[in-house]
């Protein structure tokens, strides 16, 4: 009896094991079959894209899909939304493992990651050099996409920066709009001290654990954490030295409110604690969340560094669309992007009106959508100002080790703020970076 039982058990276990294997295989093959079928029947008209914000870049794709489908009936776009970090992890692990199945045709790439991806995963992303007329885009955006003479994607949204300010606070402190045009950071700090004294409000926020401000300062001087050939750019770099001098100045002067995270940062200006916010154009949406502050905000160009060639314009963030070279619908995906996001002024007008997104497509800048005035910003034509500044942003190469360099800087930043010798600190950062990248 026992023997019979044990044999039965063995047989059933083996059978279930085999069944499990068998079923997984068969389901896989049917899935593949279905995929092939659908691809066949719709004559490769369906394209899959990954994006990370359904109300921003996901929505932009939907606009593009509508525009493209008018000319190409039957075209279908599936937008898969996931969190930005999830998307990047998924892409990294898939590409590193060499698994192409399950990857989309189109993928959104954050600009600082461009060179990292293209260099770490060669022959993975499609070349757009001859597919889009890149002269129609802001040069700095195209520079970020260019690696070894090839352009690897379609420029999408930009993060051209401005200095948002509370006109009521600044007037109370005795400053008019023209006093804030084309100033230097040293003047900014002086204004901040007066604002703090007269209104009791902070001029800005500061978060030593976040590199947004240093990045904005560096790019406004036409420099970056790393050189175009991916070496550390800390030693003997006047822009870097002045950036850190300004940063320390803001921190020392007591005009900046310390914040420890993004929500605190946004909360500080929504609650009216700070007089200015130096940030990318996409910050408009968060600023406008505080409906009771309508009419009190204005925007001016950012202050400039005290170095040769520094301008009152910079960039923070932004992303671009890539197409995977190995995808089944590569040509369709390229055509779709090139005809919409790569060349349609109508797309950019709708994207601005419907989602508040600003692109780098120069022909669209003269459109009606971009010249609209904003009541929230006291009747200022903010978008036309931002686009004007976007053409002044110095083009830089973001390189592939931006994050490593930022972390090396972050490691030393507390010492710098505590008054350590800057030259020595910069040498330390350079050394740390070089040890990190090998």
């Amino acid at each position, binding site marked *: 009896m*026992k*023997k019979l039982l*044990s044999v039965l*058990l*063995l047989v059933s*276990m083996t059978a279930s*094991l085999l069944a499990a294997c068998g079923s997984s295989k068969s389901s896989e093959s049917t899935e593949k079959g279905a995929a092939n079928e659908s691809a066949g029947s719709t004559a490769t008209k369906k394209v899959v894209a990954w994006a990370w914000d359904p109300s921003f870049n996901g929505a932009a794709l939907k606009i593009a899909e509508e525009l493209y489908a008018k000319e190409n009936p039957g075209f279908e776009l599936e937008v898969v939304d996931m969190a930005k*970090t999830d998307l*990047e*992890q998924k892409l*990294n692990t898939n*590409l*590193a*493992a*060499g698994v192409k199945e399950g990857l989309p045709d189109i993928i959104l790439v954050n600009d600082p990651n461009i060179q*990292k*991806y293209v*260099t*770490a*995963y*060669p022959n993975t992303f499609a070349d757009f050099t001859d597919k889009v007329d890149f002269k129609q885009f802001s040069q700095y955006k195209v520079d970020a996409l260019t690696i070894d003479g090839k352009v690897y994607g379609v420029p999408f949204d930009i993060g051209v920066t401005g200095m948002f300010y509370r006109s009521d606070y600044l007037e109370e402190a005795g400053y008019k709009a023209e006093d804030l045009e084309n100033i230097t950071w040293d003047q900014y700090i002086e204004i901040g001290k007066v604002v703090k004294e007269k209104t009791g409000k902070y001029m800005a926020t500061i*978060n*030593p*654990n976040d590199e947004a401000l240093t990045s904005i300062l560096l790019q406004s001087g036409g420099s970056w954490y790393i050189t175009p050939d991916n070496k550390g750019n800390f030693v003997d770099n006047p822009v870097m030295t002045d950036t850190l001098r300004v940063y320390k100045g803001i921190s020392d002067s007591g005009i900046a*409110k*310390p*914040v*420890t*995270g993004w929500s*605190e940062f946004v*909360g500080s200006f929504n609650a009216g604690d700070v007089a200015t916010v130096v940030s990318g154009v996409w910050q408009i949406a968060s600023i406008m969340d505080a409906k009771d502050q309508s009419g009190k905000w204005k925007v001016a160009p950012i202050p400039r560094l005290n170095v040769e060639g520094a301008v009152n314009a910079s960039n923070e963030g932004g992303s671009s669309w890539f197409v995977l070279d190995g995808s089944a619908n590569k040509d369709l995906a390229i055509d779709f992007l090139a005809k919409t996001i790569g060349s349609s002024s109508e797309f950019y007008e709708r994207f601005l009106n419907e989602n508040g997104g600003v692109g780098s497509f120069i022909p669209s800048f003269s459109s009606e959508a971009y010249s609209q005035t904003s009541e929230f910003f006291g009747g200022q034509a903010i978008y036309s100002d931002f686009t004007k500044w976007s053409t002044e942003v110095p083009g830089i190469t973001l390189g*592939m*080790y931006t*994050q*490593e360099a930022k*972390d090396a800087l*972050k*490691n*030393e*930043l*507390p010492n710098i703020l505590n008054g350590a010798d800057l030259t020595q600190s910069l040498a330390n950062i350079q050394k*740390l970076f070089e*040890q*990190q*990248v*090998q």
Partner: protein
Amino acid sequence: MSSKWNKSNLMGWQFVILPSALILLFSFYPMIQSLLLSFQSGKGNVYNYVGLGNYGRLFSDPMFRQAVLNTLLYLIVQVPIMLMLGLVIAYFLNMPSLKFKGFYRTAIFLPCVTSLVSYAVLFKSIFAVDGILNRMLMSIHLIHEPVAWLMDPVWARVVIIAAITWRWTGYNMIFYLSAMQNIDPSVYEAASIDGASKTRQFFSITVPMLKPIILFTAIISTNGTLQLFDEVVNITNGGPGNSTMTISQYIYNLSFVYTPNFGYAATVSYAIVIMVAVLAFLQLKVGGEKK
């Protein structure tokens, strides 16, 4: 002797074979693969063998050294505090005279069922510059200016340690409590007849009787602390500077934040494996049964 393949033996093998196969496939095979990966270096999907190069790089890597020091600090400070606290709480909760035992036990164990990320976010907001703690301290006039807890290297570490202690003390307490309930009350009875004080009983009866459990919790806590990730990423994201970064976060950065070098990341993972093994061995030597 044919007893080698008798019925019960065969039966035993049948039960063992399936889990063994699964463990081999899903656990040991990836381990070997990652060991092989740890001898390679490169970016993304371009790799070549560098022999022990990655292991050499470990020793000259200041970020790795910083991460190890941070992690060891959490280990040395947090694990003893947490285990002692757990032991003391368990002792009090085990007192027969205590009322509302169920309520206290639930209350102290409750943090363990919260998700790692959500409690980390809560701690972050408590210790924010505008956070509830600063407001409380200011309203009772202990401080005049809000303290930026998470921007000071020392306080940031204190916050992390407080967070982990809050989350895991109840977990360890449950182990102690169940072990204490297995101690025969007659032992205590005999001790009190002999005139031993409560404190004496705790140190001379409870603690020695709990030794295997204390050893067990020490090993799992060590293991858990060396793999600390969620709390640090969510509360400070390694900052200020890199002063709270753990080894696990460094592995994550190497794989997903920096230009991906999965080879070197695998090497760092193996460094954790070696450290856990060494520490567990030491703890067994120091606290284990002598044979």
